[in-house]
């Protein structure tokens, strides 16, 4: 029984003897050439340039920077608008001279 098993194992190991090399598709060159042509076109060059890690990282940082700037600017604009509104109210009701002690005149 063991002998039979060993024979099978040897037959499997020898099954690659005299193996013929597999052939690639006959259209390989055409496909490779098309890919190379695509890469050399303007879109190919642009996408490869954008895909470079340094460029991709720089673009990410730039976008984060622009976002941060927009948020800060919006917040500043909101604060400025509030201050302007408060000033208008103060001018309208003549309360621009009041300070904390004046506001507490009801306190004992």
């Amino acid at each position, binding site marked *: 029984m063991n002998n039979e098993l060993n024979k099978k194992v040897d*037959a499997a190991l020898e099954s*690659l003897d005299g193996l013929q090399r597999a052939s690639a598709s006959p259209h390989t060159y055409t496909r490779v050439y098309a890919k190379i042509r695509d890469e050399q076109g303007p879109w190919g060059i642009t996408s490869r340039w954008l895909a470079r890690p340094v460029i991709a990282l720089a673009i990410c940082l730039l976008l984060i920077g622009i976002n941060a700037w927009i948020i800060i600017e919006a917040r500043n604009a909101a604060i400025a608008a509030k201050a302007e509104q408060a000033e208008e109210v103060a001018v309208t009701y003549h309360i621009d001279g009041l300070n904390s002690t004046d506001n507490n005149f009801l306190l004992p």
Partner: protein
Amino acid sequence: MDEAVYIRLLQQQDEGAFRQLVDTWQDRIYNTALGIVQQEADADDITQEVLVKAWRALPKFRGDAKLSTWLYRITVRQSLSSLRQRQRRNGWQWLTDFFTGERPEVAIDFVHPGVALERKQEAAVLFKAISRLPEQQRLAYTLMRIEGLPMQEIGEILELQVGAVESLLQRAKQNLKKQLLDHYNTHRYEQ
């Protein structure tokens, strides 16, 4: 054509020289990739990718290694990367199958198209066993048995000493024998 002139033309990305390179190398690249990934469609993609990568890198080819070693190295790297991608895909496949309700695909036994007809059955069992070998053993065994490379060149491709390649091949054979024995023991009453 003189080898040095040919390499200089390749470095200058001469189309004629590149065509010659593709004609000479496409079958070797495909055969090596097929031996490693054991899937014809993947081997076809790898062959194209290796040749495109070679075209891109040719201007930087310094000739430190032989052109053959350089191309085989790109092929091995690309094949391993393809295998890892497949493993990652398969890793998530169960989740996709769970949600889509699809049944997982049954793995088809791979047989290299160059195997003699009367040996295909044994070869299918052997290829399954090869696919279970540790990565370095699998590469060394494939490069030797499928691409027919000498140990010296396998060492250059895998950046190992000849002794290390010899040891890898020895261990690969032992592992294969063990796996094949297990297989035939389990399937003793079939056929």
